[in-house]
C-alpha cells in the first residue's frame, strides 16, 4: 500500500516518515500509536495498537453470575464501577430481576458521580498538559492571572496573592531540578498557544482539581463502601436505607451526599467549564481530529429515569446511532440483534474460523493469535514497526451494522442533540455561541474535549435531580433497596442469556452473558475503547483513533503533542479493551469461549 481510500471514506498514505509513539502516557493501560507523515509533517496514515491483554472473560467462565460484577469491575479502576454496573444489569436481564426504585436512583447517582469525577480528572490530569504549558506559567503576571480568573468565573480562589503563591511553589519545584512527572516533556513547543496567565490559571486548577476530585467519589463510599471499586449487588444495591436508624443509610449520610452534589456543581460550573472555554478560545482554529465523529456515532442511552424501563424515552440522556453525519435521523440500536453489534478480528491478535465474518457477542469467540505481519520491523520481543496490513492489535474491531463507530461523550452529545434533547441542545448551542463557532466545529478533537466538559456539568446537575427523586421516594415510604426474590440459583432457569449496557465515561459499554446451570457459560464485553481504538476490519474500515489522527499537521515530528492531544481527547482505557487469550498457542481448544 502507498495510497488507498478506505470504505468509510478516509485516504491512507504510508509512504512518508514513520513516527512511533509508545507508550502513550496519561491514559489507562498500554497503547502504541504509529503514524506516517508527509513532507509537510501532516499525518497521512495512523495505526492504533492495543498493547495489553488480561483475559478476564475466560477467567469468568464457570463462575457464579452474582460474583461477576466484582471481576468485571477490575477491568478498569479509572472508570471504576461501570463494568460492575453493566454486569449486574446483564445478570438481572438474564434472570428477569426488577430492581427497586431506590436502587435505580442510587445506581444512577453512583454512575453520575463517576462521570463527574472521571471527566474532571481526565480534563485536568490526563488531558490538560496537551494544551497547557506548565513551564510557561512561570512567566505569568499573577495580577493579570487574577484578572483573567475574575473575568471568566465567580470562583473565589482568584486573588493575585493566591496565584503568586502557586507560581512561587511551581518555581521552586521547577528550580529544584527534580521535575517529577513533568520531566522531559514538550514545554516551550510552538504547539502550545496559551498566554502565560492562562497557563498559570490552568496549572493552579490542576492542583485544585486533584484535591477536589476526592470529594466527588465519596458518593461511592457512602453507597458502595469505598472508591475505587465500590460494591454492587445483583438485584439492587448492597446498602440499606433506614432514615430513622443508625445501622444503615440515614439522614446524616443523605445530607453528605447532598452536600457533595452541591460542591461538585459549584466546582464544575465555576472552574472546569470556564477553564474549558478559556482554553478552547485559544485553540479555536485547531480544528483537527474529527475523524469518525462527523460520520458515525453510537450511544446506548443512559440513566433510566424509572427503574427497569430501557426505552430511550425513559433515558435522561437518550441514545441511538448516527450514520454518515446525518443528524436528521437517529437509528434505534438493539443490542440483542445479531445483525447490529458485531466484532471482527481480521487485524486483531485473535482468530475466527472465518475472519471475513463478524460475530455478535452472544456468539463471540475469542481465541488469541499473536502474530506479527510479514512487513513488521524488529523481533517478536522488540517491535520497531507494526505491520498494519496483518494482525496488529489486541483490540477487536467492533462494528455496528458493519460501520466503524465513535463512542464517548461527543457521540452521546451529538445523538442527544439530534434527538432534540433540550438541555443538551442548550448546552451545545450556548458553548458554540460563546466561542463563535458553527455546529460542525464540534466534530473535532476540541469538540470531544468540550463535550466531555459539558457532560461533566450535565452529570453534576443530574445528581441533584436524581437525589431529589430518591428523597421523594423515601418520603413516600418506599425504603427497599434490593430485590432478593431471585437471589438463589434454584430460582433460575437452566439456561438463559442476558445483556447489560451502560454509557461509561468513555462511551458505549455492553456485557453479553450466557448462564447455564447457575454458572457463567460465556461472557463477552464490548467496551468503549474497543470501539474507539479498534484496528481495521476485513473491509478496510479504520477505527476512530486512526481516523481522528489523519490530516493533523505536527509542529515537530519529534514531539508528538498533537497525537497525544487527539488520542487523549478520547480518554483511552486500554485495560478495558480486554479480551480472552489462551495459555499458549497450542492449547487454544481448552480455553475456547463461545
Amino acid at each position, binding site marked *: 500500500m502507498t495510497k488507498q481510500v478506505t470504505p468509510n471514506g478516509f485516504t491512507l498514505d504510508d509512504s512518508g516518515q514513520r513516527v512511533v509513539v509508545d507508550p502513550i*502516557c496519561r491514559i489507562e493501560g498500554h497503547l502504541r500509536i504509529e503514524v506516517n507523515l508527509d513532507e509537510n509533517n501532516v499525518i497521512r496514515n495512523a495505526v492504533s495498537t492495543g498493547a495489553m491483554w488480561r483475559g478476564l472473560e475466560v477467567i469468568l467462565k464457570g463462575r457464579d453470575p452474582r460474583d461477576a460484577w466484582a471481576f468485571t469491575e477490575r477491568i478498569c479502576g479509572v472508570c471504576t464501577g461501570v463494568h460492575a454496573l453493566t454486569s449486574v444489569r446483564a445478570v438481572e436481564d438474564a434472570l428477569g430481576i426488577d430492581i427497586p426504585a431506590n436502587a435505580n436512583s442510587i445506581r444512577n447517582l453512583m454512575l453520575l458521580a463517576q462521570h463527574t469525577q472521571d471527566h474532571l480528572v481526565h480534563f485536568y490530569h490526563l488531558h490538560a498538559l496537551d494544551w497547557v504549558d506548565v513551564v510557561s506559567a512561570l512567566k505569568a503576571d499573577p495580577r493579570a492571572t487574577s484578572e483573567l480568573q475574575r473575568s471568566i468565573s465567580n470562583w473565589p480562589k482568584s486573588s493575585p496573592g493566591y496565584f503568586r503563591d502557586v507560581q512561587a511553589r511551581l518555581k521552586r519545584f521547577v528550580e529544584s531540578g527534580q521535575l517529577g512527572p513533568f520531566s522531559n516533556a514538550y514545554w516551550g513547543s510552538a504547539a502550545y498557544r496559551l498566554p502565560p496567565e492562562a497557563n498559570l490559571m490552568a496549572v493552579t486548577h490542576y492542583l485544585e482539581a486533584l484535591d477536589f476530585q476526592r470529594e466527588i467519589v465519596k458518593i461511592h463510599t457512602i453507597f458502595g463502601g469505598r472508591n475505587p471499586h465500590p460494591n454492587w449487588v445483583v438485584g439492587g444495591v448492597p446498602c440499606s436505607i433506614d432514615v430513622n436508624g443508625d445501622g444503615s443509610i440515614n439522614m446524616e449520610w443523605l445530607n453528605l451526599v447532598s452536600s457533595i452534589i452541591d460542591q461538585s456543581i459549584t466546582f464544575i460550573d465555576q472552574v472546569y467549564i470556564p477553564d474549558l472555554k478559556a482554553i478552547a478560545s485559544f485553540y479555536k482554529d485547531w480544528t483537527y481530529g474529527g475523524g469518525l465523529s462527523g460520520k458515525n456515532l453510537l450511544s446506548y442511552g443512559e440513566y433510566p429515569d424509572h427503574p427497569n424501563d430501557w426505552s430511550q424515552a425513559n433515558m435522561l440522556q437518550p441514545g441511538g446511532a448516527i450514520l454518515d453525519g446525518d443528524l436528521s435521523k437517529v437509528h434505534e440500536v438493539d443490542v440483542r440483534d445479531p445483525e447490529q453489534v458485531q466484532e471482527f478480528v481480521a487485524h486483531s491478535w485473535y482468530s475466527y474460523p472465518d475472519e471475513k465474518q463478524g460475530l455478535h457477542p452472544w456468539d463471540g469467540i475469542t481465541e488469541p493469535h499473536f502474530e506479527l505481519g510479514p512487513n513488521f520491523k524488529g523481533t517478536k520481543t522488540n517491535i520497531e514497526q507494526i505491520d498494519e496490513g496483518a494482525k496488529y492489535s489486541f483490540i477487536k474491531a467492533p462494528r455496528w451494522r458493519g460501520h466503524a463507530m465513535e463512542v464517548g461523550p461527543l457521540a452521546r452529545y451529538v445523538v442527544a442533540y439530534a434527538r432534540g434533547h433540550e438541555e443538551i441542545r442548550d448546552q451545545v448551542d450556548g458553548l458554540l455561541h460563546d466561542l463563535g463557532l458553527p455546529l460542525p466545529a464540534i466534530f473535532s478533537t476540541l469538540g470531544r474535549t468540550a463535550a466531555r466538559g459539558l457532560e461533566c456539568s450535565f452529570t453534576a446537575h443530574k445528581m441533584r435531580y436524581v437525589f431529589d427523586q430518591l428523597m421523594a421516594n423515601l418520603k413516600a415510604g418506599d425504603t427497599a433497596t434490593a430485590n432478593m426474590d431471585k437471589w438463589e440459583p434454584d430460582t433460575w432457569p437452566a439456561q438463559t442469556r442476558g445483556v447489560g449496557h451502560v454509557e461509561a465515561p468513555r462511551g458505549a459499554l455492553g456485557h453479553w452473558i450466557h448462564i447455564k446451570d447457575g454458572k457463567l457459560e460465556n461472557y463477552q464485553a464490548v467496551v468503549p475503547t474497543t470501539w474507539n481504538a479498534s484496528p481495521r476490519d476485513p473491509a478496510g474500515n479504520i477505527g476512530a483513533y486512526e481516523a481522528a489522527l489523519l490530516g493533523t499537521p505536527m509542529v515537530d515530528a519529534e514531539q508528538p503533542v498533537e497525537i497525544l492531544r487527539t488520542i487523549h481527547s478520547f480518554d483511552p482505557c486500554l485495560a478495558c479493551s480486554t479480551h480472552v487469550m489462551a495459555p499458549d498457542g497450542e492449547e487454544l481448544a481448552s480455553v475456547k469461549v463461545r
Partner: protein
Amino acid sequence: MGDQQTFYEAMREHGITRRSFLKFCSLTAAGLGMGPEFAGKIAHALETKPRTPVIWLHGLECTCCSESFIRSGHPLAADVILSMISLDYDDTLMAAAGYQAEEILEQTVQKYDGNFILACEGNPPLNEDGMYCIQGGKPYIEKLRYMASHCKAIIAWGSCASWGCVQAARPNPTRATPIHKVIHDKPIVKVPGCPPIAEVMTGVITYMVAFGELPELDRQGRPKMFYSQRLHDKCYRRPHFDAGQFVERFDDEGARKGYCLYKVGCKGPTTHNACSTVEWNGGLSWPVKSGHGCLGCAEDNFWDRGSFYSAVTNLGVTGGVEATADDIGEVLAGAAAIGVAAHAAASVVSHMKDGSKGDSSHD
C-alpha cells in the same frame, strides 16, 4: 546532586512554616501509629534528605491503585508528588510520552543507581514471551527486570503486584505473575488490596522516604502497621457477630439494623487490611459499613476462593473444584455412612452364607 532539595526545603519554599512542618511530622508519626518521639526523627529525616526519586511502573492492571493513591487526604497526593517524592516516571500521570518518557528510565538509572524506589502497579505476564503486555515494543517484564536491578527497594502496589489478582485468577491465561516471583534480589514491600487504601499507600511511601528503610513487615511481606490484624477483629459490627445477629439477605431487617454480614459472605474474618480502622476516602466509610461484606481483596488469590456471598468457600484446588469444604465434607461423610451401612449389610450376608455352610467364623 547539588540541586536536589530536601523535603524540608521544599516545604519551606512552598510557604510552609517550620511550625506547620513540625506539626505535619507529628501528624505523620501519629498516622503511622508511632509515638510522639518519632516526630522528631521524621522531621530530621525530612530536613536532610533530597526528595527520593520514585519510578512507578504499570504492568497488567486496572490502574485502581493509582486512582486510589490520588484520593489520599493525609498527606494530599499533590503534596506527595510535588514535595515529598520525586515521581520521575509514571506513565499514567507524566506529561511526556514515547521515547521522551522511556529516556527518563535510563537517566534515572544513571543518576540514581541503587537509590530510587521502584513502585510497581500491576504485574508482568510471562506467556507469549511476555508480549501480553507490550511497552515501547518490548515485553513489560524486561523493563521491570531492568529497573528492578538498579533500584533500592520495591513497593508492590495492590493485589496485582503482591499476589497476582484478577488476571492471575484461574486459569490465569497470561500467566500473570506477582513481583516477588520474578524479582528475587531486592527488598519488596507488599501493599495488597484491590486497590489498597489511599492513606495506606501514602503512609508506606512516606515511611520509606522519611526513614530511608522499609517499614516493619509481617511474614508475608506486608507492613505490620496496616496489615497485622483482620478486619473482623476491629470491625464495628463485631458485637453483632458475637451476639449471633446476622444479615440473612440483602436489605432485610438485620441489614437495616447494621447486623454482621458474615452470613452474606463477608470475608472480614480472614482478611488482613486496615479498612476497619483507617477506613476509606478520608475515613468516611468502608465496605462493611455500607452494607456489603468484605470481598477479601487484600488476600492472596481471593478471586479463587469461591462465592463472595458464602461464608464457607472453596479449597483452592486447581482444576476447577468449585465446591466448598462443607459441600465436599457432607458428601464424604454421607458416602462414609452409606459405605459403612453397605459394608455392614454385606458382612451380614457373607456371615449368613458362611453360617449356612455350618462354618461360622466365630463360635
